[in-house]
């Protein structure tokens, strides 16, 4: 596919690439969402992460998307966005 370019409309005081959001300092006290993509064995992996996160003081909430073959439905993404401070999605293979 040929490259497509646009000219930067900003004052160019910051980087052009999309950057990661700022992260919170520590996991303790955070609402952590675990999003299961619904591939087999992923639930066992997430169960163990859940326990370890809780031991570190996080509040864990589990979510599951209907199929790994498509992006999560918008309602689910909205739910996660309103209920969680950070999110982990697993486990793709």
């Amino acid at each position, binding site marked *: 596919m040929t*490259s497509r*370019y*646009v000219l930067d*409309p900003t*004052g160019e*005081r910051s980087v052009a690439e999309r950057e990661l959001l700022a992260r919170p300092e520590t996991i303790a006290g955070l609402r952590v969402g675990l999003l299961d993509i619904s591939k087999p064995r992923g639930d066992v992996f997430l169960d163990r992460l859940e326990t370890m996160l809780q031991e570190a003081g996080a509040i864990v909430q589990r979510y599951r998307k209907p199929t790994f073959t498509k992006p999560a439905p918008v309602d689910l993404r909205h739910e996660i966005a309103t209920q969680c401070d950070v999110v982990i999605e697993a486990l793709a293979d």
Partner: protein
Amino acid sequence: MSARPNLPDGLVIVVKEECETCRMVAPLLPSIAEHGPLTVFTQDDPEFPKELEAVHDADLAVSWHHDVETVPTLVRVVDGVEAERTVGWSQSEWRRITGIGDLGADLPPMRPGCGSLSVDPDRIDELRVRFEGGRLRSRRIELAALEDDIEAMFARGWTDGLPVVPPTEQRVLAMLDGTTRAADDVVASVPPDLVDVTVEKVAIAAVMAGCRPEYLPWVLTTIEAVCTDEFNMHGVLATTMPVGPVIVCSGPGTVAIGMNSGVNALGQGNRANLTIGRAVQLVVRNVGGGRPGGVDRATHGNPGKLSFCFAEQPHSPFGTLAESRGAPAGANAITVFAGEGPRCIVDQLSREPESLARSLAACLRTLHHPKLVLAFDVILVMGPEHARVFADAGWDRQRVLAELDACLQLPGAELVRGAGGIAEGLPEQFADATLPKFRPGGVLLATAGGAAGLFSAMIGGWANGTVGSQPVTREVGT
């Protein structure tokens, strides 16, 4: 980008095989070559002309950089500089320039040429990028393979909430044709971040807004006006009041670019009105860094902060607002004003100017609050039917404003805090004074709107004077 190739000394002729006139003059070339140095550039077929070996201007660099608009073009070059040229076939011109007195004796005296490939409408955008792309300085941002063009603009936070036109090099170069200014000319320092904005960056915003190139001078001038200390764009952004730049355009140029000063002039539908205002806002947002949730703290804001730009009626009985503020008669000019959304003034029964003046004054009195005076200016956008009431009675701008002022001398007793059981108002000490609603010059009168409808509109301002914002009028450049 290719650099400008020099023309060799002597005679230079640019042709294309597709052109009948070029084919007609081709047999003359050997005799011209005998008289002195001759270089022939062919735009299309490298085998043409067969009479003489030619240089193939395959990428059209020679034709582009030497402004060849017609073929054949005959140029005489002396010491690397063009001395003269002629386009098409003119027996007398070709004889004079070549010095061959009997050149083309069996040809007609004149025959027009054809369009050069370097100005072919199908190719010109691509050529512009090839030859002029290098003069663009802005960072190029590559869109990811899976990104939709329009979504990419949203994802990067470059829009005002509505989709913008992706600013490709082609589009920006085409936009820059709308001004005589150089792309790297600095236009202004944009609040709040006080970033220098070049003509190129304004052109990018103009593309995104949906402007046509002929609107660009209006956008450039408005940016200059908005970034003055007087206008105080930083204050206009940071205030909790619902104001943004309101742009009133004046002069015959408004008609030339298709602006609307008539029906629905303050509303939607007109490309020039809407995109000029929008481009200015996009510069403030993307270059200056002024955006809602950041420096922009407006409690309610108003829809005009997307774009609020209209033209004055060219033949107003009061002259134009710009002229009243010092622009030369008949000039193209803009006036920027820190204003809120418009409010309607209804008066469908006043046939006498005195009555209408009192009506307008009664409504103007309530600007922002009936008890607040002097701190705010206003644009009074008089509808044509109201304007006619005054014009028919022979009242000019000065008379209208004087009468309004007379009707707006207010008793302090009604204005002080607590008066009318209302806590808002002026300090106690003004109870015995008479105060005008507006400072001298605080009512900016413009005429716009459809020919039917006994309405005017008022656009309230932010705090005026040196602590607030002052209106700025500027003549539009090129």
